[in-house]
């Protein structure tokens, strides 16, 4: 795994989900691996849901990588896609989407970090703090995907925006 501390961008990783709902906590586990293997990367936040306060954190980053579990797709599938800013409409402020966090970031802090969402397909969202076997294997995949994303950002700042990575 590449762990060279030579990346100039300020990277923020925001992992969200409920670690007591089995595969919904996969992002937290991936975040722990990112902290361990990509220590050079910068700040890693684990949270239950996206709230307005994260806009301020995001405003201090050049790139924000959101990690989340999804109920769609084959279990264990990992997908990376760019996040575009969404103008905020009427919504409940307890939980936001990644696009809304970046929208809030732009509106309140006049900052426009690049955003990417890495979605990991889960299988079981029942009570529990363990991942399904197929989802366990997605953890190293998502870490590798983050590393690959950073490598590509380093070589070309917009590569992922034009061509979302899919693993």
């Amino acid at each position, binding site marked *: 795994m590449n762990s060279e501390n030579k990346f100039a961008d300020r990277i923020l990783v925001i992992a969200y989900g409920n670690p007591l709902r089995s595969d919904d906590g996969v992002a937290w586990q991936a975040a722990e691996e990112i902290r361990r293997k990509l220590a050079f990367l910068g700040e890693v936040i684990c949270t*239950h849901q996206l709230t307005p306060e994260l*806009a*301020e954190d995001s405003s201090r980053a050049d790139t924000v990588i959101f990690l989340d579990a999804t109920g769609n797709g084959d279990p264990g599938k990992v997908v990376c896609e760019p996040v575009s800013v969404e103008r*905020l409409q*009427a919504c*409940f*402020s307890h939980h936001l989407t990644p696009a809304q966090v970046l929208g809030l970031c732009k509106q*309140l802090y006049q900052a426009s970090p690049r955003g990417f969402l890495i979605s990991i397909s889960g299988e079981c969202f029942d009570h529990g703090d363990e991942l399904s076997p197929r989802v366990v294997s997605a953890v190293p995949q998502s870490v590798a995907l983050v590393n690959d994303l950073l490598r590509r950002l380093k070589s070309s700042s917009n590569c992922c925006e034009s061509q979302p990575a899919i693993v």
Partner: protein
Amino acid sequence: MAERKTIIIDPVTRIEGHSKITLHLDEQGRVEDARFHVTQFRGFEKFCEGRPFSEMPSLMARICGICPVSHLIASAKACDALLAVKIPPTSDKLRRIFGLAQVVQSHALSLFHLSSPDLLLGMDADPAKSNLFGVLEKYPQLARDGINLRKFGQQIIERLGGKRIHPAWVVPGGVSNPLSQEDRDAILQTIPEALAIAVRSIVWLKGTMERFREEIASFGNFPSLFMGTVKEDGGLTFYDGKLRIVDASGHVVANRLDPARYFDFLGEKVEPWSYLKSAYYKPKGFPDGIYRVGPLARLNVSDRCGTPRADQELAEFHELQRTAVLSSFHYHQARLIEILYCVERLEELLNDPEILSKHVRAIARPNALEGVGAAEAPRGTLFHHYKIDEQGLIRWCNLIIATGQNNLAMNRSVLQVAQRYVRGEKLTHGMLNRVEAVIRAYDPCLSCSTHAVGQMALKVQLLSRDGDVLDEVKR
């Protein structure tokens, strides 16, 4: 003969949890009764039976995602009583820091995220815009202040407890880890900005009061008792002290009440139409023993805050009325004064020479079979009462939550607002929002008080005398 009708507001929006409001009309279409129904049920008191008492703080923190710290503290204090230990002085101070940080973040959520749309955009604003995001379009600095203030509190909680939600750092006998110098210094660096936000927010809020004279007059503006915890010198406290009750004229009705004997003077009544129990002051009976808790009550019972800026604001607050400050609309201002106090007090505690001590936990086995822990949560006084067996397993548990203690007052406030603003069989947004806004003033946490899972939602129903639904508004 004309029919009696009922208006139902279901769900109530911009609060923590699920509820509905029913407004009962007489034959002339005037509101004759109103009820605030809490429609969610949890049952923490029951399913913790049989668990080891040492698990209680962590289990109880799961009651709420907004104020887990209050439950942690009250629960740990109940467990301290079971251990019959005096916790180390530094852990006492660290718990205070933890609690104050939570009051800041919870009050900021209530005022800036939930109630500021009413205060800034007006009670009659377009409901599609009447939210934090509507505020940030027109008042971005205020929205930033709210977000930053909440973050300030959350970061302290995260630094001490390891995470923002459901931290498990407060344990029976103290806290699990000492405060590091790095974390202490990092928190201290954030104090000046938090203080500046608190000061300018109070200036802003006081400047808006003139526009809300009608609401101040009708939003829960009635005589009641007020209860809160005070220090020996009558000063404001969130962690420890004795209970004081004052009446509407501001006179002390009861003083130095031991929170561990709450059952001697507080009763709870179950109503068939709500999962939320109604607490009352026993000597006055039900429902005359109606009392309020939370920021408004705490400031009504406190002689002083004990920090310079907050004391100035408290003195001004007490000037609002010669009696106790009665209107629940003033919960908002009280909340900001408490934020100011918390920030000032946090700075004092973080500069305490003992605060970095490594001795933060007393270890013991259970030495008592019954224990009560009480603390001032953001929304008011919180009691945890446990009984255990010889093996240390929970045999009985009772939780009295602030929102339940405000239940009678919230119901009376809804009635007062509805009688002032609701006319006829059709609801307008302005009417509906005012009925909701008075509930928001109390900042009820229904997840806590029903000891909820899922989305918050408000329904208002208009019912005929026979109970038929004539009109219904849902959000």
